[in-house]
């Protein structure tokens, strides 16, 4: 429901010198588009290098592995965070990366829309959340997640430790390419999260505190999937 729109828009139109509000989509003829020049032409390996380098600035541990060594890398990652309850999204890519059965064999829970609020309860007490990045931004070392019934948004916020698996093929130069991707979708997810490292705050005397409301620790595992 939309309330009070007509009078509100009329006021704006009048201030802008129009007799009635404009209902025609304006042309966007930008003179400057510097965002397309950033990391233009960088190779896949160069993008990985940039991403890895930036992880040092965002308090994030990063591992690189192949599809063959992914299971072992993940096992070590779980151990680093002292194992415990794991929660992960329902995502066909876990199977494609051949780690679905491994994760299922741990003390783990797969996000299940039929279980309602129980998902949130488990996520809240889980030690580790595991997700797979949809698009990864090299420039800022950022993962992008699109929510769905099978991939709850709080899964990557509530657990104290967060692990993001990054297929190498998901890496693009920067947010520009993610924005273009999102615009092409016929239906945008109800929540698209761009996540860059663990949560943090500098609100107390400008001292950085890592781990405020969201995850305290974060790890990226880049998989050479191509």
């Amino acid at each position, binding site marked *: *429901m939309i*309330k*009070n*729109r007509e009078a*509100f*828009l009329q*006021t*704006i139109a009048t*201030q802008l010198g129009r007799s009635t*509000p*404009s*209902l*025609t989509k*304006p042309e*966007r003829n*930008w*003179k*400057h588009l*510097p*965002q397309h*020049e*950033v990391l233009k032409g960088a190779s896949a390996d160069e993008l990985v290098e940039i991403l890895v380098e930036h992880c040092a600035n*965002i308090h994030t541990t990063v591992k690189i592995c192949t599809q063959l060594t992914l299971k072992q890398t993940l096992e070590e990652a779980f151990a680093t965070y002292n194992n415990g309850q794991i929660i992960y999204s329902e995502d066909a890519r876990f199977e494609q990366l051949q780690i679905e059965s491994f994760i299922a064999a741990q003390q783990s829970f797969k996000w299940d*829309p039929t279980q309602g609020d129980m*998902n*949130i309860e488990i996520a809240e007490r889980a030690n580790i959340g595991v997700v797979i990045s949809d698009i990864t931004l090299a*420039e*800022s070392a950022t993962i992008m997640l699109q*929510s*769905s*019934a099978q991939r*709850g*948004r*709080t899964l990557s*916020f*509530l657990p104290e430790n967060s692990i993001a698996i990054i297929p190498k093929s998901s890496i693009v130069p920067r*947010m*520009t390419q993610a*924005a*273009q991707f*999102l*615009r092409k979708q016929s239906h945008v997810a*109800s*929540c*698209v*999260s761009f*996540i*860059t490292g*663990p949560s943090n*705050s*500098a*609100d*107390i*005397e*400008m*001292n950085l505190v890592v781990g*405020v*409301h*969201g*995850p305290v620790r974060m790890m990226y595992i880049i998989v050479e999937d191509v």
Partner: protein
Amino acid sequence: MAMKISKNKFNDRLSMNLDNDFMRSAVSSAQHRFQTRRSTAIESLDWEQWRNHGEEIRQHVLEHLDYYLYELSENVAARGGHVFFAKTAEEATNYITNIAKEKQAKKIVKSKSMVTEEINLNTHLEQLGCEVIETDLGEYILQLDDHDPPSHIVTPALHKNKEQIRDIFTEKIGYTASSQPEELAQHARQILRQDYLTADIGITGCNFAVAETGSVCLVTNEGNADLVAALPKTLISVMGLERIVPTFEEMEVLVSMLTRSAVGQKLTSYITVLTGIQEELDVDGPEEFHLVIVDNGRSSILGGEFQSILQCIRCAACVNVCPVYRHVGGHTYGSIYSGPIGAVLSPLLGGYDDYKELPYASTLCGACTDVCPVKIPLHQLLHKHREVIVEREGRAPISESLLMQAFGMGTSSQSIYRFGSKLASTAMKPFTSDDKISSGPGLLKNWTDIRDLPSPKKERFRDWFDTHSKGGRS
């Protein structure tokens, strides 16, 4: 808290803050850190081109604001959301308190939002009996400290030290650990986590609304906005009417510029784009979503000589370079909007009665203009305010009026000027010691309170010049 944060007069606020040594050194060191981080974050980019693009996006949106608000509201509604256009602060707070009543809300969690401060939303909700909890760590600290006002747009508790924060936590929330920021933050995390899980309503601001998809984009480092938006069943986002972009493509440009300019990060930890209500089978996310679009004086700025101030994306880069802010701190401005942006915006939204001194709280050095990511000519707008205050409103500060009258009188005739300048030395004699005036009378007092003034010489410069040019010493 409304936009106005103090009943004291400007000069009283100024004296009070100039005496606050901790605040002044905290602000000065914060400015230094913000500036260094920002410089590092933009060094690999062709930043001037980015500024040009940022400016053209914001100008385009303002020129077509009626269309983009129409498109935004259509798309929010198409995704199951409600849109309320509020002409005034009162309309906005009435609408939101009615939702709280309807939901019989007891607990409301909020993420940081300047516009909700501006419309005094928390007070209205609290009067209704709701517990309103600010979840941004800085805002949370201020709220616990009996609603101490924010002193910076991005880091609102900048004026407090960690010992003060420990004392507030000890008194208000049973804190027993040290003043280490990590321990303080950990305690807040534990308390607030339960609040997210049990709140009836979540309220957020809006960094950018995307017209093409009806999305709201939230930018944080703490991740608090995400939990506010994901856990309560009802979500309300409040935005100023100008806070809009056409598509994701412009959103990403402005987000990239905002995070670099505000905190020197390529992106903050969380950039979250929310579209409508939760979808079928979704477990988290709101079942009900309201977008409240607030005018509250903004539309009257459109189409006028101050329109460019609506380009602002609230990064506070101007605050972080301002030499006046460095010395006087945020509270001196008497408004939730401080620094150069506050000195331009507060008089426009709150009127000259309360804020006529702010345009004078500037050296017009232009550092704010140079650093603005969307190229708002801030120092020119401050100058424009002074022009309006003096010429159209006829209310220049009294000292300036007197000075100008005296100057006008003294310089209107050659003989009066000559007489006056010869007299100056004699007139100032009672106040002079060692060729310096340390405690001047009348208008001079404002100067000599802070530093000495050299006393006028007996021999005027013109007389000295005449003597020397007629073959005197070189």
